């Protein structure tokens, strides 16, 4: 049998050390500002831009690494597309390895976080950045299916994992 993304208990087995990618050093000042903002819960403004939306998702934690999606470069500000007047939000995320079996779970976490923090008027699209996953279209299709997402969120085991990935509002 070939080594496929065999749902491992820990993805680390596929990619134990994602640091092979160049880690972006965060500008300390930037980080403080952004965390300050998120620590206050709901964004202060009613008008959303890509920076504000990025702030909502940057601190989501990878289900298997104690690192944030921003640290892992899974999400990046310039891959967040927001048009407030059109009620449009599109996020592209880049799994650390092209066959990461956690990709759907990461996408689901992003979706849930936005579901919880954006006003319902927004139509949200969460997709894998083109070329970053071997099963890109299958993952995108599943994440776009709101019925599947709704059913998944009623699964207590699944939702508890997602809640662990999504930073608590109060967390600094």
């Amino acid at each position, binding site marked *: 049998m070939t080594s496929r993304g065999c749902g*491992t208990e820990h993805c680390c087995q596929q990619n*134990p050390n994602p*640091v092979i990618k160049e880690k972006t050093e965060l500008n300390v000042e930037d980080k403080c500002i952004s965390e300050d903002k998120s620590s206050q819960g709901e964004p202060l403004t009613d008008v959303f831009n890509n920076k504000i939306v990025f702030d909502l998702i940057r601190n989501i934690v990878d289900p298997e690494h104690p690192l944030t999606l921003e640290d892992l470069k899974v999400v990046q500000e310039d891959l967040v597309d927001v048009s407030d007047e059109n009620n449009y939000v599109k996020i592209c995320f880049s799994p650390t390895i092209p066959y990461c*079996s956690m990709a759907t*779970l990461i996408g689901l976490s992003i979706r849930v976080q936005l579901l919880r923090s954006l006003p319902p008027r927004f139509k949200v699209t969460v997709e894998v950045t083109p070329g970053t996953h071997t099963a890109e279209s*299958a993952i995108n299709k599943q994440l776009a299916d709101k019925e599947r997402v709704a059913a998944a969120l009623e699964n207590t085991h699944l939702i508890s994992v997602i809640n662990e990935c999504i930073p608590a509002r109060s967390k600094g």
Partner: protein
Amino acid sequence: MSHFSSVLQISDLDDFITPSQECIKPVKIDRKINADTKIKIQDDGKYYQENEGVLEKLEKVQITLADCLACSGCITSAESVLITQQSQEELIKVFETNNKMKIENIDGTKCIVVSISIQAVLSLAIRYELSPNDCAAKLSTYFRKLGADIVVDMTIAEDLALLESQNEFIKRYRAATIDKVNNVLPMLASSCPGWVCYAEKTHGSYILPFISTTRSPQQIMGSLVKNWLNRNLDGREIYHITVMSCFDKKLEASREEFSSKETNSKEVDCVITAIELEQMLENDNISLNSLENSLFTEPWISNERCEVLPNLSKHVGSGSGGYADQIFKFAAKELFGMEIGNIEYKELRNHDFKEATLEQNGNILMKFAIANGFRNIQNLVQKLKRGKSPYHYVEVMACPSGCLNGGAQVRSKSNLTSKELTHQLEQLYYSLPTKSPEENKIVMKLYENWLEGNDSDKAISMLHTTYRAVEKSVNALNIKW
């Protein structure tokens, strides 16, 4: 498309993460990781772990069929494993290696035993327009040409399965009626691995106590070959092949219960199905008709090998082994002193669900049923769950029409519907002479010589098995949604 019976396809609960990531089995890997460990992918596509400058090749994850059976996830991933572990290619490889060793006179050649089931013979007999006995005799020739040492008829194991099942039924009936033991009736047939696997994965403890502990003919054949036939082989290892009508039998052969921990060998090493055999013949450019007839071996009693012309027979009742009829007749006599001639079945919702009743002075003494196909399994299971099953015994098979219509039987070449083809197979089966398992003298001698008597510990370990409910995975990282 999956080759498994539909009953297994439906229990393929959650096989969607992504098409390439179906398997959810957690894999344990021994490894030491420190902060400087890196995984590198070389140009050849292999994975290496780099630790302090030292490159170490990473092992690919291996998943065996036994892993799949123990897992609550999909079953379709099992298919790719099956294809490598019990394929035509694997079979040919085993024959070729063995033949080469024989020619070069190398020690350690295996004794290759092929056991042939009646359902597969009938399927190929229709395909090649042969009589059942001729077809069996020519299959024997084909396997001997490939390098088989012994080719045997599986009827002997069917006889043992029927005798054990009927005795088990009497015990359960008495336990339920005299000792008021719960969860022993209805007794449900155990010879269909698709049904057993579905029950283990989906209905667990609800249904398992009702399933007969008697092994299927294939697995009785397994213990007979590996535990008895080996007696005068001077320690020569046996490679055991069965020829079956159904793909699910490969899963059955891979169950942990049917392999010896000491010798790490399976009782049935490789299951090859009728449709695969047709493929092999076509690949070899052999028309089965053109082969001469050769004999079956009967190595069970005397120390010399007895060779006989195939003389196939049927049992009373269905083409799935005739469990319901055999047990019904035996129990009527044993429990109520009644001799039953023909059993009359009443068809219920569809032709695949029928029941027979034993009555005396207007009282219902026993009620038996035959339930084939997934829809009828569903209705049966729901009846059992609601405590509304009126039955004492149910012959359950996952395929509509039972084993003659097994999922790996040769497809019709003349545009017959599967129902019409099944009808042909049934006609052919019913044309065979009937033999009763009680009259099989060899079987009686096996109880004496091999099994140390009826009901002995040895008989129980060789002819019975156990089941276990598969726990559903709650590891959220593996949940498919």
